[in-house]
C-alpha cells in the first residue's frame, strides 16, 4: 500500500494523494481485492475503478470525508476495530 500515490505525473493539479486523503492498494488482480473494494466502498471511500475516464483500480480516496476529518478518522478507527 502506498499513501503517497505514484505522484510521478505532476500534470495533475492537486491529487487526493497530495491532500493526504488517498491510498493505492496493491494486488488489484488478487482474489482478495474484490473484498477490499466492497469494504472500502461500504465505508464511504471512492474507488478509482469507478472513475468515468482513466480507471485507477488501486486507488481509494476519502474525498467526502475531507470536510469532516473527525468523521474520516472515526470511520477508519471503526473499521480497524472491526478487523481486530
Amino acid at each position: 500500500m502506498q499513501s503517497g500515490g505514484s505522484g510521478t505525473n505532476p500534470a495533475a493539479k492537486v491529487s487526493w494523494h497530495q491532500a493526504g486523503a488517498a491510498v493505492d492498494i496493491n494486488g488489484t488482480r488478487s482474489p482478495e481485492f474484490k473484498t477490499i473494494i466492497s469494504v472500502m466502498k461500504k465505508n464511504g471511500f471512492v474507488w478509482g475503478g469507478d472513475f468515468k475516464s482513466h480507471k485507477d483500480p488501486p486507488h481509494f480516496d476519502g474525498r467526502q470525508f475531507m470536510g469532516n476529518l473527525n468523521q474520516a478518522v472515526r470511520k477508519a478507527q471503526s473499521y480497524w476495530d472491526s478487523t481486530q
Partner: protein
Amino acid sequence: MKASRARTSRTLGLRTIFWIVMAASLCTLSSAQASSPGQHHGNGQTASDNSESQHFFFGTSHDAKLGTLAWLFCLDKEHHKGEIFVPPRMIGFSELDLGENDGTLTFQSLDFFGKNYRFRGTLKSEEVTGEMQLIDAKSGNPKDKWQLTATQLPPESLRAERTVPARYSNVDYSTEGGDFTGVDIRFFSTGTGTTGMIVFYESYWGEPTLTPLALSGVETTKEAIGFNVEMPNGVARYHLRTTATGGLFNRDDITHEKGEKEIALKRSRVLTAVLGKKE
C-alpha cells in the same frame, strides 16, 4: 447583537486567512509540479535525440527488499551527457565524468522527488561496473546503494520492429486519481539472448510498483513470450501471448479466478521513449 457581529466578523476574518493560506498552498504545490509526462528533465535532450552518439546500457542489481532491479541508462560521450530511466521517464545527468584513459565513470542524475542517483565505477569494453547510490538531495547522504553491472545494448536491440525487441505497455495516467496505472515491459536483444525489464505502475498481484525489475529466463515462441521476475518472496513467472497489436499479459505461477481476463498490452515501436511522449 454587538457580540454576535464581532463573532461574525472574527469568523469572516478567520475564513479569509484560511482561504489565503489554502490558495498559497495550492500555488506552492502547483509550482512544485515540475513537468508533464511528456516533458524531459535537465538538458532538454530526449533519449531519441543524438541517437548515433548515444549508447544504451542495461544492467541489474540485487536488492533484498525488491528483488533483481533493472537499470537502463545512456551515455553520450560526444555531447558529454547522459540519461537514466527513472519511471516513468529518462532523466538527464547533472554530472558526467568519463575518465579518458583509466576507464573510470562517474555520473549523477538530476534530482527527482528530493533524490538523485550517483554512480561511481568503470566503463571497460562496453561493460559498466560499480556502485549506484540513491542520494538524498538535501543532505547529500546515500539512502541506498547497489552493486551494478551493465552491458552496452547493440543498436539493433533498440529497434522494436519485431516481437522482440519490443515494448508492451498499457500504462495510462488517471488525472482524477493522480496515479499512473498499468504495466510496461521492454525486451532488449543483447546479442547473446533476450533480456528486459518490467515496471508495474499498478501492482496486479502484489509486485513492487514504480521499480524497474529485471526479466530473466525469457523464452520466445511464435505465440508467446515467457519470462521470470525475481522478487523478494520468490520468482514469479509471466507470459505475454502475442497479438496483432501487442500482447495479452498474465501471471503463470498463481491460480486465477474463473473468467479472469488477460491484460491487453499494446506493442510500441520506441523502446527508450518516455511515457506519454508521442512516437
